[in-house]
């Protein structure tokens, strides 16, 4: 009869305290990831059922304290004080009590019903810490639950405790003002508390908490009081109180408050924690002695990057080929068969197969490398290594006006710019994140390599390898220069931003955590970036096939637009409609450049697959078998590649067998380009917008304005350098 009961729970805690692990363990796959309204901060919600109770869990951003100073902290504070969750579960790292309990002290002040989870209690025990959990709970008047979330220990107790809270959440509200301030400060806090109690509009807030926040100078608390009727008097009183406090403590009023909280925490720790006689030399510290070593740190990091780069490239490659063949083969084929059965007109069949299906295929083809990348990245982050890498690389990245955290996304850019853009999420400063995202496109991704190879073999013969290396270096040099300039002129605050980062204790990541992370981000890419790519593919199809009934690509809108834009590239030496058209289609993906070129130069008439498909259709059974066998083969190859990568002697530039066959194209290219204009063309390909997926990723991460800025930056930089190469080359008589 009765409605199923629901309990709303917010998870709060420090970064690295294992909050996500608790969240994943509680909610399993029942979770939803979005963004907090108007913010780029990730919001995770989930739910689970315990007996007859549904519990909705909101994972607040990980914060070290609660204030209105960073978006994460503001979100956490606003949610707890204004959305009134029934209970807040504070996840605390049991092996690092002092720092973690600072946030707890603030939560106690808010007065919200609280349950404390002492996570990673096993680590604390290994270190020889003895925590008196019962005394802990008594002193604070709220439940304290020891747990090892990664192993599921303590979850049952937490669920039982939440079940109990559902009867009457107020029983877990901390009983009294636990944090006491120094004489003069305490008097001021009480004075303001009394004044605030008189305001009926603020009954939903703990007056003592509001009083402390007002003294701390918290803008959110200030706005709240200012909006309430009668608030002006309180604010007038605040001014008087602050005046007096400043006379006593100087300008550091907030320090006095923090000091009192740490005093409270230390007092608490003294009563509940027994330390071992001999301070332990932890494994984590021993690993750090090697990893952060002045001489070993950077080589070790570069080696790990090399491993990761190879994993992303090579383990995913067989799957990418498999998906590619699946879409160009059976999927297209059966779509045609279906359309034929429905008597669809030719143009519609072409739109579906050459436009939509090819578009979807070009989205899904990114999925394997994205999954491997997200998995490897999650592994490095969850294990604690990523923070060390940032520490080690900070000095080198300082040159670009970026701090150490930017290095990993940049390196990933050599594999594929799309995951690299997403990887900038690990950079906490927004300006630095955007700046890194703007530089990533200059990192030559693997999709550009085939273009270099085709031109390299047509024009540079034995020196092709050298040309390819030069292009990679030009990309790095351009990124360095652009970073140096942008950091000084567009993002001055990034240049001055302070590098402060916690290096969490090393731990073995859980498979569930890694998988959830991988799945979340990959599916997000498919949903968001996928729509954009699909749209552009369909648009390109229309441009190639309009005006109605056009047969020569030169006469199509695509050809006409290319022809109109061609003069722009005259100074760079490749102002033909074909080259321009290839560049335009390269906007969608660099993979398309070569195929467009063979279409427009060699004049390969696109045999409508409609006709060929009627010749001798393989049965559906055959196709399914081929697909499954293909997948198994891809898995075997990926496994081989994985082992290969872990053994030395791998080549960074696997020669693409497919391109060697394009001799007709080589001949055509030699007619259309000189070696100099070919090199200028390659420089352009290297530096302009990598692909639609990158634009989509940038839009998603930084907003469309920055994505547009990135496109403009790419187009202009590419043009300037291509022209410079061509003109200087001509002056030197190489043209």
């Amino acid at each position, binding site marked *: 009869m009765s409605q199923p009961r629901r309990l709303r729970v917010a998870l709060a805690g420090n970064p690295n305290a294992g909050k996500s692990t608790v969240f994943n363990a509680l909610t399993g796959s029942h979770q939803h990831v979005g963004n907090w309204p108007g913010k780029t901060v990730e919001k995770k919600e989930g739910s689970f059922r315990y007996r007859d109770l549904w519990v909705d869990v909101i994972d607040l951003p990980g*914060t*070290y*304290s609660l*204030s209105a*100073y*960073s978006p994460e902290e503001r979100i956490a504070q606003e949610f707890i004080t204004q959305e009134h969750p029934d209970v807040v579960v504070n996840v605390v790292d049991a*092996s*690092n*009590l*002092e*720092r973690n309990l*600072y*946030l707890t002290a603030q939560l106690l002040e808010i007065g919200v019903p609280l349950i404390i989870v002492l996570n990673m209690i096993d680590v604390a025990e290994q270190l020889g810490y003895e925590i008196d959990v019962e005394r802990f709970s008594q002193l604070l008047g709220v439940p304290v639950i020891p747990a090892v979330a990664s192993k599921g220990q303590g979850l049952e107790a937490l669920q039982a405790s939440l079940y109990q809270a559902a009867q009457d959440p107020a029983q877990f509200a901390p009983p009294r003002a636990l944090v006491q301030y120094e004489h003069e400060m305490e008097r001021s806090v009480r004075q303001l508390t009394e004044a605030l109690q008189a305001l009926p509009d603020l009954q939903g807030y703990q007056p003592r908490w509001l009083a402390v926040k007002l003294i701390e*100078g918290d803008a959110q608390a200030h706005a709240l009081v200012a909006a309430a009727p009668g608030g002006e008097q309180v604010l007038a009183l605040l001014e008087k109180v602050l005046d007096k406090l400043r006379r006593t403590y100087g300008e*550091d009023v*907030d*320090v006095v408050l*923090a*000091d009192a909280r*740490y*005093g409270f925490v*230390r007092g608490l*720790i*003294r009563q509940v*924690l027994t*330390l071992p006689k001999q*301070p332990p030399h932890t494994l*984590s*510290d021993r690993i*750090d002695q090697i990893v*952060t070593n*002045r001489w070993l*740190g950077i080589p070790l990091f570069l080696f790990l990057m090399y491993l990761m780069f190879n994993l992303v490239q090579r383990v995913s490659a067989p799957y990418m080929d498999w998906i590619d063949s699946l879409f160009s083969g059976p999927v297209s084929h059966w779509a045609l068969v279906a359309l034929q059965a429905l008597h669809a007109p030719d143009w519609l069949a072409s739109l579906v197969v050459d436009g939509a299906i090819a578009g979807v295929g070009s989205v899904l083809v990114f999925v394997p490398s994205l999954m491997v990348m997200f998995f490897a990245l999650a592994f490095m982050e969850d294990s604690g290594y990523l*923070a060390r890498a*940032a*520490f080690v690389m*900070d*000095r080198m990245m*300082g040159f670009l006006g970026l*701090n*150490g955290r930017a290095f990993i996304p940049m390196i990933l850019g050599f594999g594929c710019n799309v995951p690299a853009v997403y990887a900038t999420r690990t950079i906490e400063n927004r300006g630095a994140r955007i700046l890194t995202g703007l530089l990533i496109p200059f990192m030559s991704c693997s999709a550009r390599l085939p273009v270099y190879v085709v031109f390299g073999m047509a024009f540079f013969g034995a020196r092709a390898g050298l040309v390819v290396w030069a292009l990679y270096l030009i990309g790095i040099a351009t990124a360095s220069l652009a970073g140096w300039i942008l950091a000084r002129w567009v993002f001055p605050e990034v240049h001055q931003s*302070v*590098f*402060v*980062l*916690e*290096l*969490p*204790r090393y731990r073995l990541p859980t498979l569930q955590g890694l998988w959830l992370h991988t799945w979340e981000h990959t599916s997000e890419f498919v949903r968001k970036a996928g729509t954009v790519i699909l749209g552009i593919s369909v648009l390109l199809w229309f441009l190639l096939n309009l005006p109605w009934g056009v047969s020569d690509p030169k006469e199509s809108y695509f050809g006409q637009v290319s022809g109109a834009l061609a003069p722009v590239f005259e100074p760079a030496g490749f102002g033909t409609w074909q080259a321009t058209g290839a560049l335009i289609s390269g906007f969608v993906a660099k993979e398309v450049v070569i195929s467009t070129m063979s279409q427009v130069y060699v004049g390969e008439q696109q045999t409508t697959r409609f006709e060929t498909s009627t010749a001798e259709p393989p049965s559906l059974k055959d196709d399914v078998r081929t697909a499954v066998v293909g997948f198994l083969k891809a898995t075997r190859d990926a496994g081989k590649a994985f082992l290969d990568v872990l053994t030395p002697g791998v080549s960074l530039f696997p020669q693409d067998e497919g391109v060697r066959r394009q001799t007709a194209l080589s001949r055509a290219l030699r007619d259309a380009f000189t070696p100099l204009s070919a090199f200028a063309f390659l420089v352009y390909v290297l530096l302009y917008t990598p692909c639609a997926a990158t634009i989509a990723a940038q839009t998603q991460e930084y907003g469309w304005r920055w994505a547009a800025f990135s496109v403009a930056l790419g187009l202009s930089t590419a043009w300037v350098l291509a022209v410079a190469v061509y003109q200087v080359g001509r002056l030197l008589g190489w043209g």
Partner: protein
Amino acid sequence: MTSTPNMLMPLTMLPPGQVGRIVQIHAGQRLKQRLMGMGLAPGNTVRVLRDNGGPLLLAVGESRIALGRGMAHKILVQAVSDPIPRGEFVS
């Protein structure tokens, strides 16, 4: 250690291994709040674990924190004579 116990010095000058107590932080309110939340608060003790010339690697209680050199220069500490690494618990 040769440093006299009462002398104030920037964190960058604290010899690696030596425990120091934070006395003052010269930073804007926003940054100061952030540092204090991470344990870098006046009254707490800190030890330099590694100084490669770039950012410092600090032990603050049980936490390990990487701090840019520029910021570390603006944190004033006092060397604590008792070099117990986790002095912060034996206040």
